[in-house]
């Protein structure tokens, strides 16, 4: 009976859309100047990724995504942003995602193995990790603030 219950628990856990993260790459509130972590971290397995990126999950799955973790942040109580950390099977998968959709106005930044920055976003890869940080507004201090947050995430990977 206990064995059956244990199997059931395992199955339920395996089928759940949200799972606990094994690695926490998300800086705590105050760890980066001005940034507050404003949501719990959600973790999606590859099979459940459509629940988070419905319509775009296939791209990540074909590139070998294992899990995607996401959390919301706020800078100085105003600028909202989201941090997505995609754990891929290998670095090639992270590279594939990063290179998809790059545009001419992408600014190259020294972070991880490769990093690009736009006015409202920073995208970088480090080993099998692909990190995307997106701000919902364009403000003068957004690029610098986003980069500081990205560096903190990169340091935890």
């Amino acid at each position, binding site marked *: 009976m206990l064995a059956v219950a244990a199997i059931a628990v395992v199955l339920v856990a395996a089928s759940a859309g949200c799972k606990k993260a094994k690695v926490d790459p998300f800086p705590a509130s105050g760890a980066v100047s001005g940034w507050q972590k404003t949501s719990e971290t959600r973790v999606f397995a590859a099979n459940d990724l*459509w*629940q988070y*990126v*419905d*319509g*775009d*999950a*296939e*791209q990540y799955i074909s590139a070998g995504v294992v899990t995607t973790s996401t959390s919301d942040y706020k800078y100085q109580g105003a600028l*909202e942003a989201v941090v997505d950390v995609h754990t891929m099977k290998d670095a090639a998968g992270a590279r594939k995602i990063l290179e*998809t*959709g790059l*545009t*001419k*106005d*992408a600014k190259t930044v020294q972070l991880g193995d490769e990093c690009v920055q*736009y*006015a*409202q*976003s920073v995208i970088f890869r480090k080993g099998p990790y692909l990190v995307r940080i*997106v*701000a*919902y507004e*364009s403000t003068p201090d957004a690029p610098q603030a986003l980069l500081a947050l990205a560096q903190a995430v990169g340091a935890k990977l």
Partner: protein
Amino acid sequence: MRIALNNRRDFLKTAATGAVLLGAQGKLGFAGMLDEQTAAAKSKVVVARDAQLHGTDGQLNEKRVLDLLDRAITSYTGHDHPVTAWKHIVPMGKVIGLKVNCAGGKGISTHLALTLAICERLQQAGVKPGNILVWDQANEALESGGYTIRTDPSRIRCYGSDVSGYEDQIETSGMVRVRLSKILTRECEMVMNLPILKDHGCAGLTFAMKNMYGVIKMEDVGPMHVGNCNPAIADLHCIPAIRDKVRFVLGDAISALYEGGPLFRPEHMWHPNALIVGQDRVAVDQTAWSILERKRAEVGLPTLEATGRKPHYLATAADAAHQLGVNDPQRISLMEI
């Protein structure tokens, strides 16, 4: 009653309690419009633009949205006055659903300013606040798009299908097996489709037709992405509740996403500053697709076809088996204003 749009929450409160009811009743003018369109050789689509909709600071000038809406609707219907035009579009005394798209979350959801402008005009045309229902798949998505959840039946309502629930009965159409939102099946007499223009990683384009993925139970959505959503999107629209109730597209191309969709990717956003209006869902999407492709070409991106994401579902929707509209540009009467 003219309501300033600079305070969104106050607007919802005011609109819910103080609408001018003009008393137009009975006649389903829209049905007449449909008949006219069926008889016409071409499907009419209006693209209304306002280059000043976004200021030089990139911020949306919400007060101009109502004016743009008025131009779009009067041009489409041929009526001089927007309130008169609305009276010919919507049935009176029935619940009108406004199906927005907030799946992309904050930053790339149907603009609240547009939805509020439509609510204002609907009320001025005689629709009671309680007969206006703004909805999407889930409360969480609506809130992330800037909408406030409201369920008071005497006021403009706004909530997700997770509140109303879904039918137990599985609807079948071609490859599609889905359970539909009770908001669509039970609450609304007519649904206005308010999508937002986006590139889509699977379907290529998400606009009027793809927006109906948001009326089906989340668990049923996954299989519908097979084959670049083709023929799933076309099959879905052949379900009577969708084909018959979702009868008008008021498409939001105020801001749009030309790459990286459907989630918010600010590096791939642009402001077409436009509304795309029509009854023929296929013709509207065909028009939207051409706008998307022009932008992609402008920034040096390959066509959707070259990326393996051509929206084949439009041709399927227009084929003899589906007959949902026309995708041949020669058969679309495009009015750009």
